[in-house]
């Protein structure tokens, strides 16, 4: 077996079973590129990284199945060789990011409002629950309503409901043409313009505002992109990939401004600014906003809730999520117990006592 194709299911299941039997908490690890997306986890390290390899890929089926430790880059390369891609455009944050970590964190990039989120592309998973049982949910087909949709539930649960071992994804054909337009425009007028444009049948695939300029990406057939670009107008951006990569990977200069970073997930046409002064970078056509400013977390959470969304604070290398209502949190705890009765899988990663 080659270095990039290893099935460690049994060894990993043994480890989780033993941890379950002796009540040892586990801290799940893939490429370890995203500790800042959650809270710190106390526990024995369980690495899934060596459990890797593409299990199944047939371009005409638009489905790919790979083990959790498979590097995201390997998947991008394979898909690109067949003119396909992951339309949810996940960020990786470092070259050693794995598929398992990406799906566990439910990460989606700039194309998200137009093509869908990571969870929209997850078709099936194999996972180890907190008892060390190997469970398989979903399948390798696009339409499937047999049983509860556990594969989508565990996407973004950051390993608290199970250790992902294998993931089946819907993939998509790479749009043949793409172009990015930019223009100088204020934030508020950009938000209004984005709301207008997104209601029109245009081949939009990303929309961002960096505080000074509006950036619009079009993807589709060549004629379709050209016609839309002529309709919308604006300057053509010379190196669009570098720009969208900087927004996706959070390497845009905005992210280096001093102070804690907030992620605001709000309805895209929200015009009200967050309380207190600060600077904003818009992605997802306005539905995901990065904010650098100082405010009491409770004030930000209250504001985000009143807008119909939620907010997360990234500070000192960790993340604090919007607190949940008591009824909803109680349901989270019951579900956690259903998957991980002893609370050994990444406990505390999302919330204290979960």
């Amino acid at each position: 077996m080659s270095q990039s194709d290893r099935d460690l299911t049994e060894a990993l299941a043994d480890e989780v079973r033993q941890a379950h039997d002796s009540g040892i908490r586990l801290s799940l690890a893939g490429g370890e590129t995203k500790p800042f997306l959650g809270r710190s986890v106390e526990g024995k390290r369980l690495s899934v990284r060596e459990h890797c390899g593409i299990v199944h890929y047939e371009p005409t089926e638009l489905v790919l199945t790979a083990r959790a430790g498979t590097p995201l880059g390997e998947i991008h390369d394979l898909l690109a060789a067949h003119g396909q891609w992951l339309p949810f455009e996940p960020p990786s944050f470092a070259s050693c990011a794995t598929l398992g970590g990406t799906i566990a964190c439910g990460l989606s990039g700039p194309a998200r409002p137009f093509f869908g989120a990571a969870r929209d592309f997850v078709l099936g998973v194999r996972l180890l629950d907190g008892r060390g049982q190997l469970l398989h949910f979903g399948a390798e087909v696009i339409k499937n309503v047999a049983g509860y949709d556990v594969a989508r539930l565990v996407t973004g649960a950051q390993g608290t409901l199970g250790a992902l071992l294998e993931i089946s994804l819907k993939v998509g054909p790479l749009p043949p043409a793409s172009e990015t337009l930019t223009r100088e425009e204020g934030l508020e007028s950009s938000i209004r313009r984005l709301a207008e444009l997104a209601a029109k049948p245009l081949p939009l695939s990303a929309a961002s505002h960096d505080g000074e300029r509006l950036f619009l990406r079009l993807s589709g057939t060549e004629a379709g992109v050209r016609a839309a670009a002529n309709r919308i107008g604006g300057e053509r951006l010379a190196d669009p990939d570098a720009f969208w990569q900087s927004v996706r990977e959070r390497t845009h200069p905005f992210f280096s401004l001093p102070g804690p970073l907030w992620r605001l997930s709000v309805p895209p046409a929200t015009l009200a600014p967050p309380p207190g002064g600060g600077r904003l970078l818009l992605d997802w056509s306005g539905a995901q906003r990065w904010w650098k400013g100082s405010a009491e977390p409770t004030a930000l959470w209250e504001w985000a809730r009143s807008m119909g969304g939620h907010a997360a604070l990234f500070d000192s290398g960790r993340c604090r999520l919007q607190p949940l209502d008591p009824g909803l949190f109680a349901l989270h705890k019951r579900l956690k117990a259903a998957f991980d009765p002893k609370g050994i899988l990444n406990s505390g990663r999302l919330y204290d006592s979960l």
Partner: protein
Amino acid sequence: MTPSPLASFLRGGGAQEAHGAASRSCSPQEILRRLRSAIPGCPVLSEPEELRPYECDGLTAYRETPLAVAIPESIAQVQEILRVCCALRLPVIPRGAGTGLSGGALPRSGGLLLSMARFRKILALDPLNRTARVEPGVTNRAISEAAAPHGLFYAPDPSSEVACTIGGNIAENAGGLHCLKYGLTVHNVLAVKILTPEAELLTLGAEALDSAGFDLLALFVGSEGLLGVVVEATVRLLPRPPLARLIVAAFASVDSAAAAVGKLIGRGFVPAALEMMDNLAIRAAEEFVHAGYPMDAAALLLCECDGPPEEVDEQIALAEEQLRESGAYFLRLSCSEEERLLLWKGRKSAFPAAGRMAPDYYCMDGTIPRRALPEALRRIARLSAEYGLPVANVFHAGDGNLHPLILYDASRPDELKRAESLGGRISELCVELGGVITGEHGVGVEKLDQMCIQFRAAELAQFHRIKDAFDPEGILNPGKAVPLLHRCAELGAMHVHRGTLPFPGIERF
């Protein structure tokens, strides 16, 4: 021969028997009295002739009379109903328009049917954020009509879109002809307000594109009314494409049509819809609506492209070239909206058209990997001959979702049972070919036995734990969607007894 799903549904109802025992401590009259006094002014039907319209959903072969039907019109009334039922441990079966095809809204004898039909208000339409906030009894069509002045529409279009309601769509994760491009219900709903069986109001999802914590919205969509009652939904609206054109392509063999599907998909765009019909379905449809389909074709592909005109023209050119290269001997491209609708009419009338060929038909639903299509159709033809029942096939070819229509005559002894049994074999075939037992109709009561083939005991047990986390008393739509483990054990024993466990070589998941 496998027993009828209804018979086994009733037989396998261990959990429900427990509830039955609890609610038996109360007489039906006492239950009705408590319900009526809890919700004065809200209709609670209990006369036999009032109950009759509710005795089945779209899966009409299965009927059951509930104890009563409650038709509330406010969230507070639903809460009062749930409080009474929870206290009495009385099964509650939520129902939308009753168009479901797997018996998800089949009543329980002695249980309450909760009709959400009076929740028909569109509460808010937000053209800037492109969302609609609606009550669960609003139809898909009504949302699209309300959104039309803004150039927007609600995408999921199951064949019952004129009648089916959003609450039922959420319960079943409904799809439709255009879900290849626009996604299923789970991709088009942003938030739901639900009532737990204890009458607690929870919001899953948000008006934003995601929410904090677990993705409970994704778990809830498609949960067939077992996890909560939807009382409000916020759905995503999309810009209506200015142009749609349809190509009809005829093939001399199913294999070449199936190969064409794979090649089309590999060409860098996803058609808005990609449908296939086999010869029996083509003939039935053509004789019924005269859409202009070539009656001699072994298979017909319907490929629709939509979007801005420049994009559509380019995609149509690509698709036509590909279809010709794959051996299509007949191509027709719609040149007007009228022509497009006529060409669609044949496909959309496939079910009623089949209904003219036999007194009854049984519509199956399963998904297979596309590559397995020729084998699936060959094997279905063999099963059809074995059971002596004709099967017409319509197929959402783009996403591998197969809808065999089994033609039968319920007035002939045993024929319904044979049709069901043949249906069960087709579901098993889908699993064997690497697919699943249901792509969009749901499990309901219809496919409980097939769930035992799709999943192992460990996954089924996990489904029951999820149900317990939402509904510890097990009062919401009990006994549907997920079979009890002892039922699967009995079924397995039966299969072994017959000497052949289906597909011993494949992994069970």
